[in-house]
């Protein structure tokens, strides 16, 4: 049992979700593309060791929130999928894009070609998503994933009660001058956090051909010298 994605053969898909029923439900869908389905039922302590168990002809499907049982997995799904991408393991993140988890996913988005919602998750979308990963490993990024040097303006910087900066409200004129992207301070490099203030202008590499704000990711921040 295997499936060939471009010229890469996949014969096993690991399914990671901290909820047993969800895990099994994803597994039922994976089964339909006729590859071996491996449900990750045991707790994972060490990511590096766990990654060693994923072979060259394996792929991964993971939920983002993995902390219902606090000891199931040591990191969130986005972080894990990103590590898989680094090792050229085709992988798909499945999650509802909620505002609360949006900022957790964005820092890893460069390494996450596809995020599927549970509604979108079916054998066809899964195969397509994995194919996209393989294509990216070969250096073929789709137009919506390519980044360009882009001006980013902080419209406002929000502080909490203790005066700590928490969110920069960013506007990317070359993407959509009317839409504000809320960037949590923790998503930004330390030197950018330090100088964040309303009306600050910066450059960053951003995939501005993406239509959906959830698809945007930011790299290589540059301070514009006055």
């Amino acid at each position, binding site marked *: 049992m295997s499936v060939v994605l471009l010229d890469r053969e996949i014969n096993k898909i690991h399914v990671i979700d901290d909820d047993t029923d969800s895990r099994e*439900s994803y597994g039922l869908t994976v089964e339909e593309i006729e590859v071996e389905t491996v449900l990750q039922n045991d707790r994972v302590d060490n990511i*590096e060791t766990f990654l060693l168990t994923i072979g060259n002809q394996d792929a991964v499907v993971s939920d983002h929130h993995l902390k219902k049982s606090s000891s199931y997995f040591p990191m969130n799904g986005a972080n894990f999928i990103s590590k898989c991408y680094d090792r050229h393991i085709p992988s798909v993140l499945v999650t*509802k894009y909620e*505002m609360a988890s949006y900022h957790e996913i964005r820092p890893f988005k460069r390494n996450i070609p596809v995020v599927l919602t549970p509604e979108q998750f079916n*054998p066809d979308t899964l195969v397509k998503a994995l194919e996209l990963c393989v294509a990216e490993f070969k250096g073929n990024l789709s137009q919506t994933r390519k980044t360009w040097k882009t001006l980013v303006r902080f419209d406002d910087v929000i502080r909490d009660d*203790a*005066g700590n900066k928490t969110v920069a409200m960013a506007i990317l004129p070359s993407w959509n001058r009317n839409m504000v992207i809320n960037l949590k301070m923790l998503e930004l490099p330390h030197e950018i956090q330090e100088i964040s203030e309303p009306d600050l202008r910066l450059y960053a590499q951003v995939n501005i051909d993406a239509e959906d704000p959830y698809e945007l990711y930011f790299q290589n921040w540059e301070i514009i010298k006055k």
Partner: protein
Amino acid sequence: MSTSAFQNASIRFSTQIIKRLGEELNPSIDQSILELVKNSYDADATTCTVTLSNVSAEGGTVTIEDDGDGMDGSAIKNSYLVLGQSEKSFSKRTRLNRIPAGSKGLGRLAALRMGTAVELESVPLKVSNKLNKTKQKFAIKIDWNKFDSAKLVDDVIIRINSSKVSPSKSSSTTVSIKHLKNKVTERDIKKVARGLILLADPFDDDPDAFKPVLKAPEFKELEKLVTKRYFDDADYHLSAVLDKDGNASAEILDYKGKVLFKATHKEITVKRKNKKYNCPVTTFDLWAFILNSTSFSTRSTSLGEVKEWLNEFGGVHVYENGLRVNPYGNQGNDWLDMNLSRARSPEERPSTNTSIGVTRIRDSKGLLKQKTDRSGFIEDDVFHEIKNFCQDALEWMAKKRLEIAEKKRAKSREQTASESTNSKEKVKEQINKLRTNDRVQLVKAFESYDKAVQSQVNTLKAEVQLYRTLSTAGITAATFSHESNGNPIKVIKLNIDAIERRSKKFLVGRLEENQLSKPIGLIRRAINSLAVLGTATLKLLSNEKRRITRVEVHDIIKNTLETFTPFLNGRDIKLRTELAKGTPYLRGSEAALESIFTNLLNNSLVAIENANPSERAMLIKTEIQEDVLVLTVSDNGTGIEGIALKDIWLPGQTTNPNGTGLGLTIVRDAVMDLGGSVRANRHGVLGGADLIVELPIIGK
């Protein structure tokens, strides 16, 4: 067939291995220098000086000099120049009883490869000849270019030279890395300075501790800052200890060092049901600061200097056997998820910006393993236990601080009540001093005033109780929404999809298509409705929406209508929207605007249901009149009957038997907070009521 020995062979290494190992393991200059400084620590040095010369361009030199035990020729040959093997063992102690910090020597290789050449000179502690007490200095030079041109590592010969030195010459080692391949930026120098200062626990205040020094102005500035030690300005000091048997204890001290609370293992480990921690002896100290001008108004230190200090050194640093482990406590590193916990429950919790902490681990058995690239510990069970211990202690502190806050709130409530009674008594006393005629008049007037105040207080109390009840209902709804919107709905959706796909695949010809497609369709519709209910509740509760910021009114209207569409469709209500041109915006919170609009919509939904017209209609309209946005919600419901127009905004006024009578009060309060006004028409453009909100805008 007989075999005979042809030749002996061994596995040899290409010089490329040196290049790969060195450069890929530890590329940053601060970590590379720290590796060499750790060698000085292991050699029992008390001083270690790092000098950077001509490093602003490529080709500079890094020199590390220490007064440690030094090495003789044999140690250089059999230890220093051997990679992947370490003389350091956790069972051994150094002469000064230090637990060695270095490991396989790979970090040292990375450091030495920063330049194209290395010069090492070392005078050992031991005399070379016990009889005549002569002492020798040993030196080597490594030219990495030779490795680059040689084929195998063994092909490059490194000569160990020796020369006599005075017997009184103290032991020492000097390593110079020459012709640096990269320039060192000011930011790098600051990182090196910070790394060196923090390396040997400057928070411990031990005058005899190992204190490496960098010869650079940045170092002096930072050193000054670290020695300022604003621990006494902390409002709370958490001190937690984990003993060798895995039992935890903790106390919270106030700024005077007075113990406020003490906890036993049982209290700290409520979540893990009293289970012992399985990790080495650890202490965890955290100093939490309340950084506001009021709390600093009576202190000698300024809020600014404490903030600067915390900005540079804040976070929880980890020291293993006296030496710092990178990257815990670095700027941006939040290994205890303190900021996340604070975001979830902000009251009385420290963040990495408002606290400083030290976790000291005495790992005499080497249970913790550092990653080869020096990016922290391998996150195994031992590490997780230490993390759990620190997080459990933090959790206990948060609980205790919340108790203090609660007590303060209760006291303040009591105080207000007693202040009010005292004031009343004082007024009565003054009245009694007046002449009889005036007194009677005034007593009457005061009694009537007091009655009115009491009635107002009672109304407010009832209103607060209503808000509390609604909040509880809201919290419960949110909890259920969150749970059902997560896994159960997801599981139903995934499985109904699987049933549909499989039935199409496996039941072809056996069943009429609509025998399954109809029930599947109905289940899907029901799931979608459920999901909408959950999403609508959760969307209202997002804490991001409570921030004061620029809010685009039309966006809020559109988003709320999108959420309400299934409700409106389910009730056959035809909705028309006429939004003014442009993007009017104001400064406020999304939550406030959502409250206004959602309550107006709910109000119309109820009015339409009560009137039950044959064609149900609703109109949402906005107009911009100079700097004011006028929002009108009209419907063909019952209109406003049997109540004064101004009274519809009062709490408790409702024509709906199941209503709370609070919806329009919330609208009024939220609009007033935004500087606007509200009004209504009994019967407006669609026959039912028009509810009109006017909001000042700052842009269109």
